[in-house]
């Protein structure tokens, strides 16, 4: 019984996969290869051809004004501030950022030290029972 099932399954899989393998197979005979190459060379580079059409498809008012076609950019864009105002704002922001980091770490360290001290003093554990290591949260366990 089981053998038959496997045979049917394999046959079905082969049926499903056959279009894929056919597509992936590389023709071995030189003649077939040549014909495919010819076919490929005749296929134009599609995305470049459709370029002007996609632009004219934009919704146009009653009269479409002559729009200047932007020239293709040839130089590399180098990141830069848009002006002295932006540069100053960014500079101030970074000073503020690092100042905040220093101050916040100072306060966080106070908190950490206090938390560690409270933990080691067993402040929240009046009983001596050993803490269970890493239990599952009750909602996820059952």
């Amino acid at each position, binding site marked *: 019984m089981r053998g038959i099932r496997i045979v049917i399954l394999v046959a079905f899989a082969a049926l499903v996969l056959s279009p894929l393998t056919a*597509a992936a197979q590389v023709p071995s005979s030189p003649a077939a290869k040549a014909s495919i190459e010819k076919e490929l060379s005749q296929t134009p580079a599609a995305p470049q051809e459709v370029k002007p059409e996609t632009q004219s498809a934009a919704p146009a008012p009653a009269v479409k004004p002559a729009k200047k076609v932007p020239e293709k950019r040839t130089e590399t864009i180098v990141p830069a501030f848009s002006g002295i105002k932006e540069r100053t704002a960014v500079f101030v922001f970074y000073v503020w950022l*690092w100042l905040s980091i220093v101050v916040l770490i100072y306060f966080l360290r106070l908190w950490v030290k206090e*938390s*560690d001290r409270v*933990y080691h003093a067993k402040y929240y554990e009046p009983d001596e029972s050993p803490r269970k290591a890493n239990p599952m949260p009750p909602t996820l366990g059952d």
Partner: protein
Amino acid sequence: MKIDMKKVGAWFDDRLALTPIFKYMTKKEVPQHEHSIWYYTGSSILLFLAIQIVTGIMLALYYKPTLEGANDSVGRIMTDLPLGWLVRSIHSWSATFMIAFVLTHLLAIWFTKSYRKPREATWMTGMMLLVVSMVFGFTGYLLPWDDLSLSATKVGTNIPNAIPVVGKWVTQFLRGGDDVTGDTLTRFFLFHVCILPLVIFAILAVHILLVQKEGMSVPLEAEVKKKKVPALPFWPNFILREVMIWLVLLGTLLTVALVFAPTLGPSADMMAPAPAGVKPEWYFLFLFQTLKIFPGNMGPVTGEFVAVVLILVAIVAIFFLPFIDTKPEGKKGRIINYLGVLGLIYAIVFSIWSLL
């Protein structure tokens, strides 16, 4: 009408089970020992992932994933939008930081052997996350559509071609045809902003759940000697330390992004010869160099095929590492450690070599 905030809180608590989760966080303990520092790599990855999501959404507001629009829209983001170049730079640098921390996380777990039973599945989901992160980087590299990104993508998507029968099909799937075209760009964008985020969140959820389920690993020596390792509560002792590290990492990332902002080349010309110095992202360099050193033909098969098979075997072996390293405390475990060092040296040397 006065709203009783306590009652509102209780309503949410009742439905979302917040108290048990918070109780769990206070009960959860993080062991403290000489390798504890590596625990922080995991949360650092999450920080960079969060930054990637925020800056990624910001960039996607103005990015156009088409052959005509891609390069110009990135140019517009960099020149027209307020601090757009900085947003792009943060996205790019945060990717680098994230991959670097993912690799550090992986190496730390390799050498502390934290993948050993019962954490095999955590390791395997972690490997999946590494692969997804690298695919994120690979798909993102094409999106600015300049000469370098086009060439790198051509090389990258050509690699599966080396595998007989299936490879051609994979390459066609990646490119959306025989060549890298505007269709490739559109599907890379789709992968980058839609499919991969869904995948990474699904795997990440399992990964984090497994970490919670099994708890943090303790050093191998302590486990073998059944020694009790001192620990600190996750909340607030550990998370406050994490916040401090996040702040420093955030400041470092923003400063690096400000000083070393990436430029943008002109729109890629599909007919132009490849520009000099085509390089993939730094985390692909050693694979790039590996492909380079194999000769064109090796007997009946191509050199590329041999290289690709070797790389695939290595990835699969690393994926199943917990099942290979069955005796972490024995001789086998030591050999695995040496292999890790060897792999690290290989990756570093080959990366530097590819830059020469």
